[in-house]
């Protein structure tokens, strides 16, 4: 794609999320869509992290563990230490990144289904840990977390107090979208940098990369840490919106969904997880009207999609012979 079309695409995207969507919601009065879209934006941040681990050739079904950890870090800091939410957001991400280095060092030596299995187990272990530790208050969870406070620098208000806003839904939507754009911009930058090229070499053949002199163990831990950082941030912001967190807030099904988002959008495309999250989450939401058949229809569609398009939504492009977008 040429630079001008790229810039135009980004411009159209920004116009849609910042002008068209709020306008359409105000016009239609469907304020509940803000919550849905906020969730999509936040979940797509976590999915972006999963995508990055796919990028180094690992199937990661453990993102739920880091979103849960990030959520708890933020919740505990806000409720028990009285820290401002905006400060806990990066702290949650850093905590998850540090945790993932510790966990990643041994498990990143595993590949293929082995890595997939251990990350899935990790999600369940995170839930059990949250149930067992005293600081997370077990199954009761942490509830009635205050809304994000004002963030000011040298007396200048950067972000207003959410509790005093007349429309916190819109504020949360804007916050989530800005976070999402920043995350994807960073991801795009990573993928198109030297680091990204090295990651691609890992995806193709680790032994070969290593023999050429790529420090593979450092790289994969780095990629995994970035991925978990994304998970932590998404989890922390989710907690701010729902104002509560329980051990079951993020569980195995969520981890699997993060992986599905990436697959569905297509793994060869940075913005794939965003598309996948949007389609899956909205699909799930729209099926809400079908009541108790929701899961049945959803899973049938998923299976049908896998049968027809086993290589992701973006493989439609390839079928038409247009080649991959870049």
């Amino acid at each position, binding site marked *: 794609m040429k630079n001008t079309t790229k810039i135009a695409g980004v411009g159209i995207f920004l116009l849609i999320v910042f002008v068209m969507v709020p306008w359409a919601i105000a016009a239609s009065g469907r304020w509940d869509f803000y919550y849905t879209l906020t969730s999509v934006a936040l979940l797509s941040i976590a999915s972006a992290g999963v995508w990055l681990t796919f990028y180094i050739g690992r*199937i990661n079904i453990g993102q739920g563990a880091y979103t849960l950890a990030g959520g708890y870090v933020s919740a505990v800091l806000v409720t028990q230490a009285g820290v401002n939410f905006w400060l806990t957001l990066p702290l949650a991400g850093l905590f998850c990144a540090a945790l993932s280095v510790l966990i990643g060092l041994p498990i990143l*030596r595993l590949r293929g289904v082995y890595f997939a*299995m*251990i990350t899935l*187990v990790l999600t369940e272990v995170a839930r*059990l840990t949250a149930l067992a530790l005293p600081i997370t208050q077990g199954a009761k969870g942490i509830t009635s977390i205050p809304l994000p406070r004002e963030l000011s620098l040298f007396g200048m208000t950067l972000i207003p107090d959410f509790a005093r806003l007349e429309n916190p839904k819109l504020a949360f939507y804007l916050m989530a979208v800005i976070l999402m754009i920043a995350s994807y911009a960073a991801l795009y930058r990573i993928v198109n940098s030297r680091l990204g090229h090295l990651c691609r070499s890992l995806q193709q053949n680790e032994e070969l990369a290593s023999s050429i002199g790529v420090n593979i163990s450092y790289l994969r831990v780095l990629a995994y840490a970035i991925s978990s950082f994304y998970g932590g941030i998404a989890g922390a912001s989710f907690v701010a919106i729902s104002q509560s967190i329980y051990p079951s807030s993020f569980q195995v099904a969520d981890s699997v969904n993060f992986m599905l988002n990436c697959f569905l959008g297509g793994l060869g495309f940075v913005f794939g997880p965003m598309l996948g999250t949007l389609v899956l989450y909205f699909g799930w939401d729209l099926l809400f009207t079908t009541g*108790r058949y929701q*899961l049945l229809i959803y899973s049938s569609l998923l299976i049908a999609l896998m*049968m027809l398009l086993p*290589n992701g939504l973006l493989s439609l492009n390839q079928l038409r012979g247009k080649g991959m977008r870049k």
Partner: protein
Amino acid sequence: MEQILANGLYLGAQYALIALGLTLIFSLMNVLNFAHGQMYVLGGFVTYTVVSQLGMPFIVGLLASAVTLAVVGGLIERYLFRTVIRRSHREESTMLLAAGIAFFLDAVILLAFGEKQRGVPKIINGVFNWDFRLIMPYDRILIGALAIALIAAFILFMQYSTAGRAMRALAQDRVAAQLMGVDVNRYSTLGFALGAMLAGLVGGLLVTITGINLGMGGPTSIKAFMMIMIGGAGVISGAIAGGFILGMMESVGLTVLAAYGDITYLAIFVLLMVFLAFRPQGLMGKPWG
């Protein structure tokens, strides 16, 4: 101490049976069956329906579970996995399909059997009591013995029957097996059916003791994954070893760590990570098998 060991053996026998099915499917098709836990739950509900609703004897219920799950497993392989494996470029696509099937089975179980906890009446009453050092209800002993008998039967089947030999050949080298005249498609279906059947049988066995509910599927899959990571994926002896090791660790952990709250699985996971750091392929697995 005797009590802990007996509990561990009993748990281990169940676990090994679940892990066997999962590892069989993995070794034949290179598919990680996410829906294994759901198949186990389905098996439990079939037995419950036959025994409690229709009033048939327990053994009929167990057979019904085995047959139902074998049919379901065979159909899933024949019409879903085979198609996707043929069409997709990446091996991981089957994982996605398996996840979809897990959701699907969850939905079917929810609609057909509801979300209540179900159980069947005890099959035999009474408690075995050895001087208060070892206390074990008779039905647990029976179920444990049945599970061990099933494991033995499975090993004999894999070792000595033609079908078993064909499946072992397939697991070793798919192409070579095909060249030697093994009907790959037929034995893949059979293997998947057998794996699903084992899951269903464990469900049928355990419904008499712990009962069954919808939420048990996911955690069961996760335990099965842990077992085959301990033992090594795709290796039958590894699955059995993994099952008994996890059963034993759970039994010991529940007793020793009881004072610190419910952290048994956390401890097991930490141990597993340390273990995998030294031996990524598990006890008996081939490296990157």
